[in-house]
């Protein structure tokens, strides 16, 4: 229920904010109407902290839930995805603060050797389920096994990279266990012994701090490329707990029947690239993204693009940055011919250095850029490519 405390002065800020018109000031007091949707918008604007969404912290004993688990995403080449190493790096800080163990969960086929890598990034213990059926990710098999591990070992916190795989897996686990799960976090910290999860909403315009006090484990998916990866500690070791699981054939309900690579062999992938040169519709010259690609090549950068470029059939979707594409945060994002639709901005605005080139001085892309170049990319990019070639002695 939404409670109005005595300290309410009837200032009316809540009334103006409520998107449902469900709060009215009567006799200098806010009065909650029947159509209140409990969205909490009013709680955020009250200058006197007079509004409160009343909820009880249940006095359940969670002391037997301990440890912070990180899910290990294994890449096709058999190595650990950076997103997992980033989570271990962050997880190590959080686990230290809680005085609990940092653990990794590793599923796959012939993946045992990766425990060493996980140890170097801070894992004290690695739970391994290593079976041929787990070579490729399967929603049913992976979720069922992890649910089993969680039920058996009772971790306090489980964090999973918010990659396509992680976003497929995590809600399946959380829903079955009926525990809280926060999607796509960009910040994690400990507050009052609980995991405080920070995530963007409304296309990154607002941030929300979220907690799950009444359920365990506390679960979150975390956006790749946001947490800083720590330096690996050479010689670090960890305990290995191997679990054997029998996987019924009937459990593998979803099958991949066809799989084709969309990127060229040897092409730089934007997911983990340090530098990305990216182009939008404005950079598509006679049906190609040549100017962007040439600059990327001399810089040693990966090629990104906006949705419009994919829509035009110029680049495959694997290059697309933005809401329906990939979220990236390279050290350098150099972008030309993108006006800056919010759908694109959410996918790249956390990049370290953004350099934007656009003819229109009012283009929204300049709002997220560190350096804004007002000019004609058709004139600038070839010259820039040549200049860099000279710098690099190419």
């Amino acid at each position, binding site marked *: 229920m939404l409670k109005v405390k005595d300290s309410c002065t009837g200032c009316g800020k809540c009334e103006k904010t409520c998107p449902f018109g469900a709060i009215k000031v009567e006799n200098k007091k806010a009065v909650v109407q029947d*159509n209140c949707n*409990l969205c*909490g*918008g009013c709680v*955020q*604007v009250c200058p006197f902290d007079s509004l409160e969404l009343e*909820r009880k912290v249940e006095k359940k004993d969670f002391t037997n839930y301990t440890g912070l688990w990180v899910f290990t995403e294994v890449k096709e080449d058999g190595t650990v995805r950076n997103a997992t190493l980033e989570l271990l790096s962050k997880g190590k800080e959080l686990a230290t603060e809680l005085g609990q163990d940092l653990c990794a969960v590793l599923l796959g086929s012939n993946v045992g050797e990766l425990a060493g890598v996980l140890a170097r990034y801070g894992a004290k213990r690695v739970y391994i389920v290593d079976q041929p059926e787990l070579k490729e990710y399967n*929603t049913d098999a992976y979720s069922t096994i992890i649910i089993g591990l969680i039920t058996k070992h009772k971790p306090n916190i489980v964090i999973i990279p918010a990659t*396509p795989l992680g976003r*497929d*897996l*995590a*809600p*399946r686990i*959380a*829903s079955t266990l009926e*525990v*809280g*799960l926060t*999607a796509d976090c960009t910040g994690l910290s400990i507050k009052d012994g609980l995991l405080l999860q920070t995530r*963007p*909403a*409304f*296309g990154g*315009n*607002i*941030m929300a701090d*979220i*907690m*799950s006090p*009444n359920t365990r484990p506390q679960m979150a998916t975390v956006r790749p490329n946001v947490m800083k990866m720590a330096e690996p500690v050479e010689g670090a070791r960890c305990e290995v707990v191997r679990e054997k699981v029998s996987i019924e054939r009937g459990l593998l309900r*979803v*099958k*991949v*029947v066809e799989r084709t*690579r*969309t990127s060229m062999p040897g092409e730089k992938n934007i997911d983990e690239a340090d530098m990305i040169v990216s182009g939008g519709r404005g950079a598509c010259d006679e049906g190609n993204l040549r100017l962007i690609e040439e600059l990327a090549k001399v810089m040693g950068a990966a090629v990104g693009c906006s*949705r419009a470029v994919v*829509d035009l059939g110029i680049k495959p*979707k*694997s290059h697309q940055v933005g809401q*329906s594409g990939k979220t990236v945060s390279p*050290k*350098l994002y150099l972008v030309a011919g993108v006006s800056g639709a919010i759908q694109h901005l*959410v996918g790249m605005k956390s990049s370290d250095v953004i*350099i*934007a080139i656009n003819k229109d*001085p009012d283009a929204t892309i*300049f*709002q997220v850029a560190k*350096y*804004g*170049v007002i*000019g004609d990319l058709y004139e*600038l990019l070839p*010259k820039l490519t040549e*200049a*860099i070639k000279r*710098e*690099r002695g190419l």
Partner: protein
Amino acid sequence: MHIVVCVKQVPDTTEVKVNPETGTLIREGVPSVINPFDQFAIEEGLRLRDKVGGEVTVISMGPPQAKAVIQLGLALGADRGILLTDRAFAGADTLSTAYTLAKAIQKLGKVDLVLCGMQAVDGDTAQVGPGLASTLKIPQITYAETVDVTEGKVRARRTIEDYNEVVETRLPALCTMTTPSNFVPTDPPFSKIQKAKKKPYEEWTANTIGADPEKLGLKGSPTWVKKVYAAQTKEKAIIIKGSADETVAKLVEILKKEHFL
């Protein structure tokens, strides 16, 4: 075949602005629209129905004004619309929403395929679809761009990272849909909007679906939003202009200064 499409009414995120002082959304004058991924899910469901026969039911959970998105679904061609609306549903997080939708779908009886948008553009969580599949204990295919049904199986095409995939599972199943590059949402003509008003439309409450009150709305939501605030705005960009040669020289200097060259 019975296809159920789950949809959500969202504020038009392209119109949403933030009050930099309070950090709250300025919702005044922001139109409510159907989540774009959900409209695609409806249209894909209808295409499938027209191909293999059967019916499409559109359901949504939301306040009474969310009727508008159900009406849109009916105008696009859906056969039946259900709005789950009850004070008890208010304040639901993704777990509670998935539970509520699951109870409604179970009440519908035989359902072969559930379609959802990949995510809603207001929260971007992408959690309700998989959560719903999990609650219904059916397999899920996420990020589908097109779905087809043959011999009791659903086959979906999707792009996951650097791969195009064709994925298959048996029915009943749930697919979350993402819009393919060439998708243009249909704007139904007035005549169809008028006709849609005569199609079966119901409003269901917690009672109708026989839900456990402990699992509904704010009460049934394990995640608590503690604080909402405006995202930090970046410092203003350093603007570079001038002749092409000057600009390029400055850019090279910047790239060196930032250690990219």
